């Protein structure tokens, strides 16, 4: 039925004279030797008729790169504007404040779609605007499969927003309530009601601007679904975000602060931790949005439930030619944590409003500096950056305190018994229990990763329209478990930490155990390098060869079992072409390298095709604060076509 509606809509749009329209087409196809194949096609059609606007997105994907196969209308929306009122029906994406209450988007790369299918009514008249949103949101999240989502959280939600603007000031109030059916890792679904109330305000001046937003959230759970009893109180939380910017000439300083406290934990949150922040809330992360592949792979996995932090970024211009940027951020959980035993953790609230540097609060530091600009009569573009970060991923034990040992003293007493003239000599044992003086116990173990990355790029444009670009990225990375203290284990029967030297509590140790390895051998530092060379001719085509290289892996070593002619060509392996090489038993020098070549061609100014052949290393990819582990693509071909018209 939906297909007939789509065909009818397309036909009507094309034949009607007074309907304006635009459309976008994307087709992506990929196939690799290890069954990473996809075929996805999407058509976006917008049409405009007087005060009426419509949008339909049709998708035929079997299977898509990420997500579920579909051959249907994926999204649609009808909008009608009458004077000061706007009514929308269909798939709605709204953004209030800075997203602490509501920030909706459809990100196809991370497969994150938190839009609402329902009704929107908006009113805007001069300084006053308000809106109401009501509908259902179905948000899919990834489990262990890197391409097919597993967890589904559905929200039946309604929300209201009102905003008033007066000169350079604006003030907004927001409210959302949602009934969520939350899919858990273990057990039945949970039925949770979320209530949020928010307030935000901004002030814009010539050289300063300020934005502040606060949200308060309460969730309750319907534990007995059939009996309709009152909900149990589940969790309460709040979020604060502030942004103060200063401008002077061609320089700007951006300062940000966040504190998101919707839940608390010394570990990561799982699907079984529910009742906290919901998927409709997508707030600022306070991390640098990176556009370098290697920096993207060491992105921090932001915690919207329990994280606070600060970020500073300076942007400016040197000699009116070069762009300079420097950024620093420091984040941590809202509490320090102490492990009283191996499984019993207690939080210790931070004393100030700033993030903690204590490893038990899982701190994260990041800084990035970059200079870029045009030189040589604007023919040469250059970019040189430096990024470094440090992150504590997890704490396995973290105790620092005093302990008292129980001391048992045995003594034997000689005893003589006279029984009917017989003398018996005996002895009895007595045990005295005493306690030692208090002594310091330190039992700490945490996992930390550090990296520094240098991305650079050169691009020279020749007068005949040709352009040559070279990019190089270098990264050094360590990831290790650090253990330190004078105790390494906990005795549950004795309810005490076990000293490594029970006779001497001053005996301490510190070990560093790297997490990187290669073929079973431990490797202290992972070196990553990526080089790419692009030749292009405006306005028609560009050709890029990319090589990615790593010396060690976090986890099992990935073995490349297939050898292709592109790799042989790049590494000058003549044996491959003369038949002297066993193609399914590649030599060592080809391992741990990913080579790809891509040709992009502009058919017209609004139509573009690209073909890629080779291998792409998988890894972490983050967008909009959502991170996704991308599966490796080995020895395959990708084809894509996009057009707007």
């Amino acid at each position, binding site marked *: 039925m939906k297909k007939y509606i789509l065909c009818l809509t397309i036909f009507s749009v094309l034949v009607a004279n007074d309907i*304006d*329209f635009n*459309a976008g*087409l994307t*087709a992506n*196809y990929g196939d690799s030797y290890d069954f990473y194949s996809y075929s996805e*096609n999407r058509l*976006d059609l*917008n049409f405009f008729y007087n005060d009426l*606007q419509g*949008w339909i997105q049709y998708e*035929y994907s*079997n299977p898509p790169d990420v997500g579920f196969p579909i051959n249907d209308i994926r999204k649609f929306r009808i909008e009608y504007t009458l004077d000061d009122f706007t009514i929308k029906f269909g798939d709605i*994406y*709204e*953004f209030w404040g*800075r997203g602490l209450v509501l*920030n909706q*988007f459809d990100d196809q790369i991370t497969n994150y779609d938190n839009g609402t299918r329902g009704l929107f009514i908006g009113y805007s008249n001069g300084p006053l605007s308000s809106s109401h949103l009501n509908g259902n949101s179905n948000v899919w999240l990834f489990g262990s499969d890197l391409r097919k989502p597993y967890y589904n959280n559905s929200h039946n939600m309604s929300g209201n927003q009102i905003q008033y603007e007066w000169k*350079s000031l604006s003030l907004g109030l927001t409210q959302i309530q949602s009934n969520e059916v939350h899919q858990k890792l273990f057990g039945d679904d949970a039925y949770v009601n979320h209530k949020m109330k928010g307030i935000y305000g901004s002030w*814009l001046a010539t050289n300063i601007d300020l*934005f502040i937003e606060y949200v308060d959230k309460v969730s309750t759970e319907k534990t007995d679904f059939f009996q309709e009893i009152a909900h149990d109180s589940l969790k309460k939380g709040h979020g604060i975000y502030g*942004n103060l*910017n200063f401008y002077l000439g061609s*320089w*700007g300083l*951006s300062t*940000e602060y966040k504190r998101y406290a919707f839940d608390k934990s010394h570990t990561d949150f799982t699907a079984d931790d529910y009742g906290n922040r919901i998927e409709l809330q*997508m707030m600022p992360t306070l*991390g640098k*949005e*990176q*556009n370098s592949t290697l920096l993207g792979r060491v992105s921090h996995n932001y915690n919207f439930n329990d994280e606070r932090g600060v970020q500073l*970024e300076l*942007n400016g*211009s040197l000699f009116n030619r070069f*762009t300079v*940027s420097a950024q620093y951020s420091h984040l941590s959980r809202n509490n320090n944590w102490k492990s009283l035993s191996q499984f019993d953790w207690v939080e210790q609230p931070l004393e100030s409003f700033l993030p903690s540097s204590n490893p038990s609060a899982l701190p994260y530091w990041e800084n990035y500096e970059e200079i870029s600009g*045009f030189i040589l009569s604007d023919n040469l573009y250059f970019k040189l950056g430096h990024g470094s970060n440090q992150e504590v991923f997890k704490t396995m034990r973290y105790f620092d305190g005093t302990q008292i040992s129980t001391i048992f003293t045995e003594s034997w007493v000689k005893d003589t018994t006279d029984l009917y003239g017989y003398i018996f000599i005996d002895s009895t044992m007595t045990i005295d229990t005493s306690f030692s003086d208090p002594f310091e116990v330190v039992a700490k173990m945490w996992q930390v990763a550090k990296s520094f990355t240098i991305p650079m790029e050169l691009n020279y444009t020749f007068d005949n*329209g*040709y*352009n040559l670009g070279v990019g190089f990225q270098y990264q050094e990375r360590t990831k290790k478990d650090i253990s330190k203290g004078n105790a390494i284990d906990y005795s549950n029967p004795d309810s005490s930490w076990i000293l490594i030297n029970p006779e001497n509590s001053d005996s301490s140790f510190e070990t560093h155990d790297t997490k990187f390895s290669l073929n079973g051998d431990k490797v202290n530092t992972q070196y990553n390098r990526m080089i790419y060379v692009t030749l*292009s*001719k*405006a*306005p028609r085509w*560009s050709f890029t060869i990319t090589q990615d290289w790593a010396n060690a892996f976090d986890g099992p070593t990935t073995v490349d079992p297939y050898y292709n002619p592109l790799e042989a060509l790049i590494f000058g392996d003549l044996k491959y072409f003369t038949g002297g090489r066993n193609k399914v038993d590649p030599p060592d020098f080809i391992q741990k390298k990913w080579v790809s070549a891509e040709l992009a061609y*502009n*058919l*017209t*100014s*609004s*139509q573009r095709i690209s073909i890629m052949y080779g291998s792409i290393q998988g890894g972490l990819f983050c967008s*909009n*604060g959502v991170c996704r582990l991308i599966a490796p693509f080995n020895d395959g071909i990708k084809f894509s*076509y*996009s*057009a*707007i*018209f």
Partner: protein
Amino acid sequence: MRKYLFTLLFLSKSVMFATDSGLGSKIPDIKLKLLDGSKVSIHELVEDGPLMIDFWATWCKPCKKVMKYLDQYHQDYADQGFKVLMINQDTPRSLSKVKSYIRSQNHQFFVGLDPNQKIAQKLNGMVMPTLILIDKGGEIKWRHQGFIPGEEIEIEKQIKLILESQASES
């Protein structure tokens, strides 16, 4: 096999269909908020002359390269009513740095905000950069996706064409 046939059919149809058939259609009167807090509609911006719309983000490398040229054209052809509107798609993750970046570059063009891609979706500007050239009457005259260094020559050529056409009509 069926999916490959469908893909082939889909592509061949689209290539035939996509011969710039949407050119000449009128752009909708979308309202947007500018970086300085003021509000403007696209139809207001085309009252005096042609408008070039470009979608960009602070983390988009080719976007930054083309911005340099677009700002130059915005200033060079301002006396003929030509304007450039850069619609920013930074999310809350990097929204706070947009104004700082624009001021550091001393760009003079208009910068609009579209943090959850509502406008980009309506104008099919999801790929960055996407350029849309609109004449004084609000009709779309040229579209372009992506940026290869050297394409600024073609961009300026299209601007000159539309300005010449405007001059000859008046």
